[in-house]
């Protein structure tokens, strides 16, 4: 694969080692601008390590990462700080990833103070209010603290914080796994809206294929540090090729199937 001029991100033969063992092994893929790529696999498969390597949060042992035609891995100093603006992350635990002593407004304004120091106070307040509205929170939320919000609302704040510097790629690492199933859809749909309105590309990491299915254009399946299958959403769910993909699909709990299953639900 050569750089086509359309890629946002191009990863070639990426490897990350922990104590001599490869946690991520020979991973290659591309992402187009505005694309949503699902990354599924179980704990220990290397999906979070891969994400952290892309964001330069963990050292890379082998391979190349090209961001809009420039080498991301050799970036240093000011160049790396500029890049950090383009790649932002949403974490699994929404409450733990927010500073409990900062108001929501302060948390959202901080990326602007760092990346757009020329902005005046008034303009910052305005941008924070716009973002809060975009993620479905009242503008008055800016004066409140993270503990005053539910888990789903905290994740909206986490997404708003990540979106403040107007990134081109949002990496969501199990961003809905710690939420109630009834709320997960709210967050998935919010990400879907952000992608549609702002054309932000999203790398959406999850262990649950039923969730990935609603958001992703393409899905990569990771196992033992390697990508074992990559397919468009339609292909993957209609005709999974790798046995591990099939095992993942079979493990998704399904209330409708349970009604027909010999295991129950039984009659009381």
């Amino acid at each position: 694969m050569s750089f086509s001029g359309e890629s946002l991100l191009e990863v070639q033969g990426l490897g990350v080692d922990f104590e001599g063992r490869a946690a991520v092994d020979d991973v290659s893929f591309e992402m187009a601008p505005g694309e949503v790529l699902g990354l599924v696999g179980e704990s220990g498969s290397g999906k979070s390590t891969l994400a952290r390597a892309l964001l330069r949060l963990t050292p890379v042992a082998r391979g190349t990462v090209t961001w809009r035609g420039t080498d991301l891995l050799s970036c240093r100093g000011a160049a790396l700080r500029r890049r950090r603006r383009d790649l932002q992350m949403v974490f699994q635990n929404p409450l733990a990833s927010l500073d409990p002593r900062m108001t929501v407004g302060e948390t959202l304004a901080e990326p602007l103070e760092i990346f757009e120091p020329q902005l005046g106070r008034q303009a910052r307040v305005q941008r924070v209010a716009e973002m809060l509205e975009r993620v479905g929170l009242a503008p008055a939320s800016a004066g409140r603290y993270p503990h005053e919000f539910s888990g789903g609302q905290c994740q909206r704040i986490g997404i708003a914080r990540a979106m403040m510097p107007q990134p081109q790629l949002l990496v969501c690492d199990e961003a809905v796994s710690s939420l109630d199933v009834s709320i997960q859809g709210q967050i998935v749909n919010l990400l879907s809206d952000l992608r549609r309105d702002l054309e932000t590309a999203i790398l959406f990491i999850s262990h649950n294929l039923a969730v990935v299915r609603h958001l992703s254009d393409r899905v990569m399946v990771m196992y033992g540090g390697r990508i074992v299958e990559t397919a468009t959403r339609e292909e993957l769910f209609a005709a999974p090729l790798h046995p591990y993909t099939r095992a993942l699909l079979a493990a998704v709990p399904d209330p409708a199937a349970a009604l027909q299953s010999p295991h129950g639900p039984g009659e009381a």
Partner: protein
Amino acid sequence: MNAAPLALGQPTLRIDGLKVRYDTGRGGIGRRAIDGVSIAAVREVSLQVSAGESLAIVGESGSGKSQVFLAALGLLASNARIGGSVRFDGEELLGMPAAALNRIRGSKLSMVFQDPMTSLTPHVRIGVQLAEVRVHHADATWREAERGALDMLERVGVPDARRRMRAYPHELSGGMRQRVMIAMSLMCEPRLVIADEPTSALDVTVQAQILSLLRDIRAQLGTSIALISHDLGVVAGIAERIVVMYAGRVVESAPARRLLSAPRHPYTSLLIQCAPSLHDARLDRMPCLMGQPPNPAEPEIGCAFAPRCPRATDLCRELRPPLTGIDELSQVACHHPLAP
């Protein structure tokens, strides 16, 4: 208390009119002073787990589902104010002295928590942690207890159990640790195992294995199981009866098959639609419940679900619907229940 009793089997655990409330003192965070508030974690709950039954308690975060069982086991924080009654095999647990409670907890009545890492002692070998349950509760010798521990590890499907007896918790995967926790909960052949979100911290593939293990245990040992979860998809394959909680109250309870195929409460119906499924045709949107559950610090007026309910009327916003019997096995608290 406000509904006709259900025609259920012999109760193992019987909870009547349970209330849990927290009074917080005045304090401050950041620049803001916060007034003391009274939080109703459980407004009023009555339910029973019958002998040999597998019951699921389903609700969102903050619905009070865990609080009900933590209260039953005397595990709530010291500022909790508890009312009502919890009887286990006819014995009242609320207000029971700690020494007496400790004879029941961990032996006849045991609990499996969500996070298997934080519920195991990190510096004690697995085999010792398992054996001490039987030494402590059943007066077994260490040699007998360790034999029992090995037997139990094999029973819950831990491969290479003899070697794992000598392992420390950090040397095991999340799924293995949860198997160890389940083995521990079974060491004294309990009457009832309470499993609080036992698979929420685990991968979907491991989740399926743990649920199948719980199903086998009930079939083989006749242990009652109370499974607490926010995910109806998870409980569907294991529960015989389901109790749905919302904002500190039971809003529907029924045999699982009936509840899943013909929910009467609009909340139950929406929860079923929200369970992520591989068969949902609406690919571009993921089904979800809009809005937030009510603030437990605010007074309760009318039906707590009314602000999120598509069927709500003025009546719902003014008058709380009582939990009413539909038939001898089912109850619903709704002014406008769905047709059966």
